[in-house]
């Protein structure tokens, strides 16, 4: 619980500071790519946590490096007159969607298991009742 509270506090603080920052229009592309990279690493972390492979070092390094590399690529693309940011966006969104599908599958499977257990119990009960009736 303490961890969740800390995280929520940080997120709220981030939103409040973000409301007071105005991004110049020319930098908005870089920020957008950085946001995508960060979101991707966050969802990747969630997915890893579900698979019990989460490591803080990997998460942090991915979080920072992905964003920086994405920004760097977009910068190079703008200098070379190539829309590299499109490639970056496609790659990161693809990974993000992959992570999301992983999380969703896991979640659905868990729910499925619960349901089966629940239904199994119900079936057990019913079968017991049936047996008693038969007796």
């Amino acid at each position: 619980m303490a961890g969740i509270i800390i995280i929520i506090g940080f997120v709220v603080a981030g939103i409040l500071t973000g409301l007071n920052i105005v991004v110049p229009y020319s930098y908005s592309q870089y920020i957008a790519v950085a946001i995508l990279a960060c979101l991707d690493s966050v969802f990747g972390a969630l997915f890893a946590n579900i698979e019990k492979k989460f490591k803080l070092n990997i998460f942090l390094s991915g979080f920072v490096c992905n964003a920086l590399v994405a920004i760097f690529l977009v910068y190079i693309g703008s200098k070379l007159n190539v829309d590299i940011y499109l490639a970056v966006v496609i790659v990161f969104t693809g990974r993000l969607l992959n992570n999301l599908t992983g999380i969703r599958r896991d979640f659905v499977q868990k729910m499925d298991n619960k349901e089966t257990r629940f239904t199994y119990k119900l079936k057990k009960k019913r079968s017991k009742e049936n047996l008693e009736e038969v007796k």
Partner: protein
Amino acid sequence: MAEKKVEKAETKEKNFKNEKIKRIWNKITVFFKKYSIVSYSVIGVALFFLSMMLTAQMKSMSDTEEMLAGKRETQLADDLVTLQRKYDDLKQKYDDSTKVVEEYQSNSATNSTLISSMKEQITSLSAMAGTTDLKGEGIVITLNDGSKVTDADLRSDSLVHDSDLLTVVNELKAAGAEAISINGQRIIATSAIRCVGPVIQVNYQKVAAPFEIKAIGNAQYLESAMTIKNGVVDLLKEYGVSVTISRQSDVQIPKYEGTQTFNNATTVEE
């Protein structure tokens, strides 16, 4: 010995303090490890940056979207060019109008003199046009129908005709009369003197004998112009019209009573 004791005590105190700090530290580390606060806060810092960037981006995008929504780059370039042109035009206008304002401000002193000169012009022009009462040095001529002659033919001549009045007025004008009136009717540029049946009309107003012609001007010139040999007065006296001329230092001439309107004439701007 005493020094050693003191040292021992000091070391004891130090140890005690260290132990206290250590205990607190241990407690903190245990607390942190129990809830794994460090890792969570590290994750929190990362999420802090993420949420900050997200909100800032969203906010600034929603601000700019209103203007740039659904517009391609070429369209925006066109808009930019047109706006720049408009801006240039407006700036030009602004500069011009500021210049005009500056001129007015610098001429405000001369403006008052201009206004006063214009007022003077108006008064002089209205005096000429006959829209103001005037007074000044001048002469008064009185013409009356002759009563001495009884002959019918002559009698007609001895009456004061419109032509008589016209010649008198003409002579007065030639002599430099500045304002003329006949029986209180001001003679202006468009005044007509004509015979209508038994009476004479001046400014479409009936006037009858005796005719009192007032004229403002140099009285001496006017009188001499009237009484010159074989002049108007002589002619009229020959006809049998009674003429009296008197110089006056204060002749009062009323203003023109009618209205002057131009229906067909328009001024030509030079």
